[in-house]
C-alpha cells in the first residue's frame, strides 16, 4: 500500500480527468445514462436516468423517509456533531458519532 496520496497529482491523471468530466455529465443528465434495478426485498423496480430522477425516488428505509427528510436528519446530526466538536465536549461528540455510526438507538 502506498504511504501517501497527493490530491493534485491524482486529479491531474488523464483518465481521472476524463472520469470527472464523464461523472459530471451523468449528474447533469447530459449523456443518456440510464439504470434500473429491482429491490431484493420489496421486488419494486426502480428506473432512473439522472441524479435528480434518482433523488426523486429516494426513500430510506424504503417506503419511509424521502431524500428531503433524510437530508434534514443529517443536517441536524451535522449541527450536533460540529457544535460538540467546537465546544470540545467529549461526551456529546461521542454520542453524535455513535448516532451517525448507525448505533441502532433502542434502549
Amino acid at each position, binding site marked *: 500500500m502506498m504511504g501517501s*496520496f497527493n490530491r*493534485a497529482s491524482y486529479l491531474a491523471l488523464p483518465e481521472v480527468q476524463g472520469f470527472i468530466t464523464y461523472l459530471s455529465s451523468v449528474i447533469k443528465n447530459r449523456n443518456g445514462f440510464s439504470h434500473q434495478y429491482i429491490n431484493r426485498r420489496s421486488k419494486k423496480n426502480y428506473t432512473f436516468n439522472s441524479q435528480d430522477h434518482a433523488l426523486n425516488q429516494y426513500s430510506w428505509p424504503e417506503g419511509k423517509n424521502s431524500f428531503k427528510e433524510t437530508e434534514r436528519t443529517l443536517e441536524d446530526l451535522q449541527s450536533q456533531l460540529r*457544535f460538540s466538536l467546537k465546544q470540545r465536549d467529549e461526551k456529546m461528540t461521542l454520542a453524535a458519532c455513535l448516532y451517525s455510526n448507525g448505533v441502532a438507538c433502542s434502549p
Partner: protein
Amino acid sequence: MGWRVAHNGQWLINYASTQSVVELLEDAAFELASETVYIKLFSRGQLRMNAAFTKVYSLIMDDFLIYDSRVAAALCMIIVHYLEKSAIRLFQKRSICIPCLPKKAPIPLLQRIEIQAPVASILQKCMGVNPATR
C-alpha cells in the same frame, strides 16, 4: 441501559474511555483535508478509516463523501460505463480501479453493550434535540 452497538460503536466507546474522540476527529479531518494525505496514519490504527467513519467525516468536513459498499458498487458501475465509452482498458488504468479491502475477521455485527448513563442520556437527547439550533 443496553444499546445495540455496531462494531465501530464499540471501538469508539473503548477509545473514548482512555483518549479524546474530539482530537481523533480533528486529527483525521486535518489529515484528510491536506494536499498530501499520509494514508499509513489510517492503516496503522492511529486514525480510523472505514465505511462507518466516512459517515462521521462527511458530517464534520465540507468536502468529503461517505464511502461504503453501496457507494463503491455505484461508482464501479459508472466507471465501467465510462471505460466502455472511452475505450480505456480497465487493467491499464489502475488509478480509477477501486481496490478490494482484505476480508474482515469475523465479528458479531451487532452486540449489546453497556453504555454509561451520561452518554446514554446524551444519545437520547441527540435523537430529538439539537442544542446548536436552540
